[in-house]
């Protein structure tokens, strides 16, 4: 005979009825099965009825909440964000001071990966775990920092040096905001229907959905990321439709001759480019596919929709804390200090002279300047220079050096079937140089 006693949990107050022990105070003998208890019995603690009990099989705890050790709320330097910028700040601080307490707060899992690789990972058949260069817990241990993952910042009071999160409040000595930027999703692109490839989790979700069969995918937005993804997905065997408001891909950055070459290159790979269209709505069709309707009345049905419509910095933390914000957290261009004492910011979330700069290259230098500033060391000062822009379109590599002026005039300096070089001059000064494709002599070498 089975004598395995069961337990039942009061949903109202958490009292546990244990069949083995019964409830002698209420006249229920030890060893009374729950189903044998009279219907008018009530919870001895709170008085709710028998029907409000449910079987109880032991507690459950979510795993992996803390990536490293126990939590101290005397946090030292606090870094918000565990992307490239957050980790760069942690590395820079630790390199200069081996004992400084550092706490990192991440809304995601915090694993280290190289974000630009997401644009070329599908055609390389990369698996999500292969893209991770270092697990968050390992990096935290190596750097000797306290890491909280899946933790959201909900409040910041600069006057109190207090940062509030979904896992408690932290008193910081200095705060480094490396929150990144999030996809700017136009109202016509509902978040529950459109993938965004701005982090490993987003990429992994889409990767899993696409599976191994060829799918039809619409990519909305033919900026840098949209063009890179279009080529990558097409190489991976998917049928790609690339949509943009402009008449040519990457038209905001490239002069028409270069944009035309890019379009041709993409079309050679099988990408269908649909220019001069605006998405009016995305809906789920009856068969689970997505239906895109444009403002000019075109209707496109695809398996998946990817929004590559640019990035914005979430203004919430800055607004709550009263930090100056202008398309990003406003920082002093030399010290990278935000507008409140002991708060710094770097990476995709900042704006320098009113403009964000969302490239990898400046981040390590920014982190170095911030680390020296926090530690009170001599700071040369950050000097922003426009990063080299490289479009990861293997069929037609595109490189821009310098700071091109939107709408400025470009001159062809070299041109053949496989290669186009252009320059932009202003007042006798070379502003930018553009290389599209690969010169023949390099191919021959």
């Amino acid at each position: 005979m089975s004598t395995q006693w069961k337990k039942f949990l009061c949903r109202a107050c958490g009292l546990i009825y244990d069949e083995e022990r019964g409830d002698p105070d209420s006249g229920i003998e030890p060893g009374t099965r729950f189903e044998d208890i009279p219907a008018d019995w009530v919870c001895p603690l709170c008085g709710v009825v028998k029907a409000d009990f449910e079987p109880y099989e032991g507690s459950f705890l979510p795993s992996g909440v803390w990536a490293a050790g126990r939590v101290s709320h005397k946090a030292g330097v606090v870094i918000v964000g565990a992307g490239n910028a957050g980790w760069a700040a942690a590395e820079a601080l630790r390199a200069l001071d081996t004992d400084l307490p550092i706490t990192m707060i991440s809304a995601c899992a915090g694993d280290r990966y190289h974000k630009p690789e997401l644009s070329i990972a599908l055609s390389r058949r990369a698996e999500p775990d292969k893209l991770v260069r270092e697990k968050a817990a390992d990096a935290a241990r190596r750097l000797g920092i306290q890491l909280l993952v899946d933790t959201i910042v909900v409040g910041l009071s600069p006057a109190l040096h207090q940062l509030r999160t979904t896992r408690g409040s932290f008193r910081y000595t200095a705060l480094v905001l490396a929150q990144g930027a999030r996809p700017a999703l136009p109202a016509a692109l509902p978040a529950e229907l459109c993938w965004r490839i701005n982090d490993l989790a987003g990429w992994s979700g889409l990767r899993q959905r696409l599976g191994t069969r060829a799918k039809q995918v619409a990519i909305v937005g033919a900026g840098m990321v949209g063009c890179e993804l279009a080529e990558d997905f097409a190489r991976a065997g998917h049928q790609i439709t690339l949509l943009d408001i402009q008449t040519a891909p990457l038209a905001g950055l490239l002069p028409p001759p270069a944009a035309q070459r890019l379009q041709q290159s993409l079309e050679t790979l099988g990408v269908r480019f649909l220019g001069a269209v605006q998405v009016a709505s995305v809906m789920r069709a009856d068969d689970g596919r997505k239906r895109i309707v444009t403002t000019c009345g075109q209707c496109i049905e695809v398996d998946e929709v990817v929004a590559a419509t640019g990035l914005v910095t979430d203004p919430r933390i800055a607004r709550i804390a009263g930090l100056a914000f202008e398309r990003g957290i406003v920082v002093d261009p030399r010290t990278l200090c935000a507008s409140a004492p002991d708060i710094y910011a770097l990476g995709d979330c900042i704006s320098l002279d009113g403009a964000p700069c969302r490239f990898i290259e400046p981040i390590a230098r920014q982190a170095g300047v911030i680390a020296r500033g926090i530690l009170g060391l001599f700071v040369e000062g950050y000097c922003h220079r426009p990063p080299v822009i490289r479009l990861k379109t293997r069929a037609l590599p595109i490189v821009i050096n310098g700071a091109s002026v939107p709408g400025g005039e470009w001159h062809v300096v070299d041109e053949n079937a496989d290669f186009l070089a252009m320059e932009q001059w202003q007042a006798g000064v070379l502003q930018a140089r553009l290389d599209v494709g690969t010169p023949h002599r390099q191919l021959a070498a």
Partner: protein
Amino acid sequence: MNPADLTTPIFDPSWSDSLVMERVTGIADGALADAAYRIDHEGLYPLEVMSSLGESGAFAAHLDAYGARYGLALEAMRAISRRCGATGFLAWCHDVCGLYMEQSGNPALMGTVLEDHALGRSFGGTALSNPMKAMAGIEKMLLRATKVSGGYRVSGALPWVSHIGRGQYCGAIAGVLKDDGSRSHEIMFLLRFSDDVVLRPCPAFSGMEGTSTWGVRLDDYFVGEDTLIADPAQPFVARIRAAFVLLQAGMAVGVAQGCIDSMHDVEPVLGHVNQFLHDRPDELQAEYDELGARVSRLALTPYDGSDDYLLEVLDVRTQGAEFALRASQSALLHQGARGYLMNSAPQRRIREAHFIAIVTPAIKHLRWEMARLSKEAVPA
């Protein structure tokens, strides 16, 4: 003539904020402060004080009919909680019950019924702890309703509901069951404690004993049109949720302020040793000021339906609870043995602060909800 003249002792909408606060503070610092010990230790349910607080406008200020002055309602609750956290909680219960009645738009719950409530002539609280958690996915709905001719029949039990008693009432929510037993939606109604509702004494709590808290058992209780607050309840709850939570901040700042008072009380005699403590009164005062300023700003737009606003409200409510805990701990340390006496305010406030930290939404629920609200939608 000065409206404060004794010939017009009952609040009306023309009263200025400062006049209301003058009256409320007078009662809080007088009769309420005198009764705080008995409320805490003897379980005295301070309906007389509540009645005079009602007459002074403490429970009407936030209502549309009286100018929708949320900042004033919060100020009143702060002044009350500064002297007695249990009565501060009663004030919150009473305030949100008035909010439900007025926002229901149900004529049977407005007019003189609402006026009596707002001015402290009748009393009622709120039984939304379980449904709020149920709607957030934390636990299951305890009251179950079935549709009948002319309304609903509701059954089930709630473990502890405060500021209720015979002849009183509270806002409640029940899940409506379909024929197959699944839940179709929820209804919200004013539960009147007539004789057919079983009130069951609760076990002794560590504090807040004067809040007239009972276990409630309903057995086919009839809910008719005249007591419905919202059907369906969810859109209604979504609309009032931020206001519901924000009003609780008044309890937190009030209890914390009482703690700072206690620290100052002993500064002349104990300052020479208290200087070695952390969380000193000036530090706490700075945080109190910062927190109070944010509460005041949020009180300007209690019906802002955005997620961003709700997140800020949940944050300020959480911060208030954490702050009250720290302040109460520090107040006891500052007062030393005198704060450890059973009749001292600091040891009472420790238990009041614990209550603020665990009453729905508790700190853990607040963080759960903030995490949930912050999640971005992704294709399923």
